[in-house]
């Protein structure tokens, strides 16, 4: 994920240096407001730890190996501000001392891995682990998920930075001046490896380190736990109902469901067989496919398989309703209700099985 010199245009590098500078400034200011003197050696040692951790080869399922970034455990122990500085310093030393990653692209690498990686890892960890005890197994899941999501978020940004180069920087004859692949190639090429290997490695190492700290040094997990020192989750007034924030989030998302009808055009690939038979439908398909003309007849496989199942509520809008937005909203409520009912049924079934499995 370390972008070397020469892959990104100077203007992209300058923009990402500016973005990274904002993160560095914010991180430094936050550290200065808290415990500056104590944080300096802690951040330095953590940067060194992250650097060494990147050299660990972790055996992964499938026989391959991967290495972690260390951004997740830094975010969990130091918080996002400390992590931004620690990982930036590790990346800077890699570039300035070991020649791994470029100098002109240092801002881009720090922006992707240190700043976005730290913020995404921290947010994911805090959301998933909200209200959990320090020693809870949910914190392992939260750390693993945070590592996976943060690594892939950073890789996605790098892929976008690669992918916009040929769109913005070509000479008169059409020769790409920097990274030569458009988004359609850069994103899958970058993401496959990170979704399958790098994200898994970061997730496993983060979860393993949190498990180790839970057993050996739980105090290190305290500062970003959201729990007051010495208090258990049950004592925290804001954590008495940890599910409340999830219900609020679901309600907000439900209210936002009609946003889907505001988007222009059709979702690429979500066409029915009848879309091909009308001129209007074919025009929509062509508009969504970079103006390549759609075939006049639906593909035979699509025709054959599309009749296998007919939805009771086609296109998220029951036929009896005239308002599409209201139909979207109702469909959203119905879908969420269905998922909740299925989850409750599964939970009841598992509890029943657990109860039946216990002796006496």
């Amino acid at each position: 994920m370390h972008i070397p010199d020469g892959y990104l245009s100077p203007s992209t590098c300058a923009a990402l240096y500016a973005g990274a500078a904002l993160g560095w400034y914010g991180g430094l200011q936050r550290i200065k407001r808290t415990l500056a003197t104590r944080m300096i050696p802690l951040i330095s040692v953590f940067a060194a730890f992250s650097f060494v951790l990147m050299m660990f080869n972790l055996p992964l399922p499938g026989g391959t190996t991967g290495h972690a970034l260390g951004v997740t455990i830094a975010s969990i122990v130091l918080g996002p501000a400390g992590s931004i500085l620690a990982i930036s310093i590790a990346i800077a030393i890699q570039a300035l001392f070991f020649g791994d990653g470029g100098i002109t692209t240092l801002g881009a690498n720090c922006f992707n891995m240190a700043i976005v990686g730290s913020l995404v890892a921290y947010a994911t960890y805090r959301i998933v682990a909200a209200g959990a005890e320090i020693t809870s197994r949910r914190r392992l899941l939260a750390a693993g998920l945070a590592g996976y999501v943060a690594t892939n978020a950073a890789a996605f940004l790098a892929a976008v930075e690669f992918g916009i180069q040929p769109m913005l920087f070509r000479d008169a004859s059409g020769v790409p001046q920097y990274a030569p692949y458009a988004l359609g190639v850069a994103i899958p090429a970058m993401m496959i490896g990170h979704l399958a290997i790098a994200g898994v490695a970061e997730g496993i190492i983060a979860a393993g380190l949190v498990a180790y700290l839970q057993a050996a040094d739980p105090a290190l997990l305290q500062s970003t736990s959201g729990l007051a020192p010495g208090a258990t989750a049950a004592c925290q007034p804001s954590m008495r109902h940890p599910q409340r924030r999830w219900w609020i989030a679901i309600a907000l998302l439900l209210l936002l469901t009609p946003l889907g009808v505001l988007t222009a055009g059709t979702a690429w690939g979500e066409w029915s067989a009848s879309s091909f038979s009308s001129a209007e439908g074919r025009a929509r398909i062509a508009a969504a496919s970079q103006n390549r003309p759609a075939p006049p007849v639906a593909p035979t496989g699509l025709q054959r398989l599309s009749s296998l199942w007919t939805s009771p509520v086609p296109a998220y809008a029951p036929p009896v309703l005239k308002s599409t937005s209201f139909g979207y909203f109702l469909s959203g409520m119905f879908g969420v209700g269905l998922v909740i009912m299925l989850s409750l049924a599964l939970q009841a079934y598992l509890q029943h099985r657990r109860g039946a499995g216990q002796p006496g």
Partner: protein
Amino acid sequence: MSRNRAIAATLVSLTRALGRALISERVARQRGLLQALDPRVRVIGLFALVLAVTLSDRISVIVALFCAAVVVALLSKVSLASLAARVWLPVLFFTGVIALPALVLTPGEPILAPTGGSFPVTAQGMSAALLLIARVETAVTLTTLLILCTPWMQVLQALRAFHVPQDVVVMLAMTHRYIFLLAETAGQMFESRQSRTVGVFDGATRRRMTARTAGVLLSKSVELSNEVFLSMQSRGFRGDVRVLSSFRMRSRDYIGLVAFLVAGGVAVWIGRS
């Protein structure tokens, strides 16, 4: 053998990093062209050339800058064999792998059809691949020259001279020092683990072992930071950091700076398409 592959690979990574650092320190102590210049001139000058490489659109200009970098390397007593092993071959391989599909994926005028016409190599694709390889090779060569010819402490002093915040410079200095300590500690942990490993472990056990080793290293790191903090406090550290900077520009430094900037400026001027 395969059961220890990950441990062996980790040991190789750690040893290679330490080895590279030793080579850098040795080259930086030699008497050569770059070593004779003020570190600030080296940082500004080589950064200007890297910027010129990324701003130039003509491959001929980038190749000329690459040749200039080779001459500077020879005059700075940097072995071309070590540059080839450390930079040119790895960059050629990795960037080549990335650039190769661009030959056929870049739309343009077909010039070659090795697979019978279905995926023709285009002129634009060829130019894009060559441009990318030349640009990355040259930029990484220039960066490596800076790294090889400048002791780390001088890089830090130069950063301080460019008004990088003191806290950041101190953290960079401390991190650099602890990287070697932690890398050595991690290497010893993996070596002792390898020497006591007899049976064959499954993947899950090996993952647990690696995570546990990382955990112990993390605990040692935090202990180390506490010890460092206490020793800093015992010496009266109150958060103010002063970095010694004894740089003094001489006439040859000014000449070197002007030469770098003129070379970079001319390359950008000629290299614009």
